């Protein structure tokens, strides 16, 4: 970046600040902060679900306040997930699952206030690390992405989708099934080559394909409501937190583990950048790394703060990371950015390198909100910790009908048709069935978001080149991306082949 570039960047940042520091936008940020803290602190409600429920409202807003709302909400929700983890041993969101045992063990030693004080501080630091990496890395990658054509986008979509399958916990095969379900859903509607209506069965509502927002609300809202009402109401006995001298030992702890914080911030951010791997996977990896390199690994699991520092930093850092591929390539880094990209598409804004030239204020608004959200995380977080045990006392069965009603109206509001409510219902049942059978939902979401890009870029490239498949390897960048894709695809096959050989060897030795 030359001096001129620096001036332009400064100008854009000032524009972004002036867009954010307005009573209306600040009010939206405060409301979404409270919303995020509430949803995060209630077990069974996830940050992704919160995004799906927020989207029908942000759909009617300008891009800047809409993005500010989502960024603030997710930062708050991922921290607030730690609160029920420490108080009642149940993670508020999956991202806090890695260190629930550890937090609860400390609570039982009477240190609930201290744990949550560390949680909120490292969450803010982690969030800022993620934001800074996002701000530094995104423009650099965007310059590379400027040269991309439909060939490169095809490979990029392939890499993104393959990643989302490879990072799934559990069976790769089921991850692939999930991805295929998502991709198949995008084939409904008018096709790009001939404008032929596919799989519409003469229903006009299907011509534009599955409506994105109702599908997301179904998959993350309705399925979650179904799961919650199917379980007995659990009464928690929450511990009251002493918040008075909460931060007394916190600074010392963070100073002691400052290297851990830095390391976990980097791990979290880079895991967040990988498509399909979000804050939860970042936290698990950071916790494992922390234990591996710790001087006192035997203390892990018995109420040792070190692992919490690492994992608590990593999950908030992952949020910023997930926005890197989302803003630069239009390839989502996690389920939340997948929903955001889908909505931006609907609004005619195509995330990608062009956004850096055409609407840089949107970009800088995301940056500024990320910094702002993580700064206000500490005061808002302290309030949430104080209210923690009260929030846990709200009966879940009272919340679920209310959430369901929001799901219904939110789906209806996008196009004002009950058809979309039907789409929501069908997607909800599908997602519930998938999760019950260990088929992860995240790859399907990436499939739904990237399916059209994948098919369109392939068909356009093919027609351009008169069906010469080698064009995908003609351009150097495209060839490199293609080779990466092929390596990603062959990985699992090589692993299976090796396992077979090993088994065959063992059998021989056995006989």
């Amino acid at each position, binding site marked *: 970046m030359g001096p001129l570039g620096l001036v332009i960047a400064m100008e854009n940042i000032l524009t972004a600040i002036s867009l954010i520091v307005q009573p209306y936008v600040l009010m939206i940020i405060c409301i979404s902060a409270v919303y995020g803290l509430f949803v995060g602190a209630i077990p069974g409600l996830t940050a992704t679900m919160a995004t799906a429920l927020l989207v029908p*409202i942000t759909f009617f807003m300008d891009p800047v306040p809409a993005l500010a709302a989502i960024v603030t909400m997710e930062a708050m929700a991922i921290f607030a997930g730690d609160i029920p983890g420490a108080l009642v041993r149940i993670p508020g969101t999956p991202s806090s699952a890695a260190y629930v045992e550890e937090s609860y063990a400390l609570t039982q030693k009477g240190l609930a206030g201290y744990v949550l004080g560390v949680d909120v501080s490292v969450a803010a630091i982690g969030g800022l690390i993620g934001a800074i990496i996002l701000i530094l890395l995104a423009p650099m990658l965007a310059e590379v992405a400027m040269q991309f054509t439909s060939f490169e986008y095809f490979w990029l979509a392939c890499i993104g989708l393959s990643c989302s399958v490879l990072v799934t916990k559990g069976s790769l095969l089921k991850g692939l099934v999930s991805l295929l379900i998502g991709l198949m859903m995008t084939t409904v509607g008018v096709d790009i080559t*001939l404008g032929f209506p*596919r799989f519409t069965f003469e229903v006009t509502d299907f011509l534009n394909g599955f409506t994105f927002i109702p599908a997301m609300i179904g998959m993350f809202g309705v399925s979650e409501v179904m799961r919650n*009402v199917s379980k007995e109401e659990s009464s928690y006995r929450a511990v009251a937190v002493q918040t008075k001298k909460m931060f007394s030992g916190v600074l010392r702890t963070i100073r002691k583990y400052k290297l851990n914080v830095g390391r976990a911030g980097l791990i979290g951010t880079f895991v967040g950048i990988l498509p399909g791997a979000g804050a939860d996977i970042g936290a698990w990896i950071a916790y494992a790394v922390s234990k591996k390199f710790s001087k006192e690994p035997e203390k892990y699991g018995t109420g040792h703060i070190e692992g919490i520092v690492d994992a608590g930093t990593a999950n908030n850092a992952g949020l910023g990371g997930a926005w890197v591929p989302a803003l630069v390539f239009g390839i989502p880094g996690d389920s939340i950015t997948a929903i955001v990209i889908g909505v931006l598409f609907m609004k005619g804004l195509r995330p990608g390198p062009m956004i850096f030239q055409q609407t840089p204020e949107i970009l800088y608004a995301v940056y500024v909100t990320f910094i702002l959200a993580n700064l206000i995380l500490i005061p808002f977080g302290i309030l949430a910790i104080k209210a923690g045990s009260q929030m846990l006392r709200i009966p879940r069965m*009272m919340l679920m*009908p209310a959430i369901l009603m929001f799901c219904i109206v939110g789906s209806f509001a996008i196009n004002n048709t009950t058809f979309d*409510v039907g789409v929501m219902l069908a997607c909800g*049942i599908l997602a519930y069935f998938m999760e019950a059978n260990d088929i992860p939902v995240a790859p399907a979401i990436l499939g739904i978001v990237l399916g059209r890009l994948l098919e369109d870029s392939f*068909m356009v490239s093919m027609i351009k080149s008169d069906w010469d498949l080698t064009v995908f390897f003609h351009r150097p960048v495209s060839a490199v991306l293609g080779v990466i894709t092929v390596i990603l695809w062959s990985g699992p096959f090589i692993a299976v082949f090796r396992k077979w050989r090993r088994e065959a060897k063992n059998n021989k030795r056995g006989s």
Partner: protein
Amino acid sequence: MRISNTAIGLILIIFASAVLVHVQSFPQLDNGYPGPALFPSVLAVLFIFCGIGLIIQGIRRREKVLKFDLGTATPAGWANIAFVLGTVACYIFLAEYVGFLIFSFVILMILMKWLKVKVLHSLTMSIAVTLAIYLLFAKVLLVPLPWGLWGW
């Protein structure tokens, strides 16, 4: 609700075969190259591979093909799920006639009664949620919520 890997595999193969048959009716590009049918066909073939893979896994683990297990949910839990789904279906078919305000209040009361929430709680919650949605969507976001026959 859990079913066996073999059963999932079979469902995928049947679904993919139906797709493959259906796409035969799609038009081709001028020069005979595949057009709209290409992408769905590729997906269907991959579905079949996955289906075969899942069946092999199922056989290796000696699963019962017709294993049908309601999972962690109790029968009461299943009734709750049915009730939730019923609510959504009701909205699709009834809201237009009843109107949003009445529909939302009544259905929230019924749902919470079914889920054994205390009457006082459910009354306040139903009124609060109905009004909040009404103000947010109808007044602020100007969404034309269904008004029903009585204009409510």
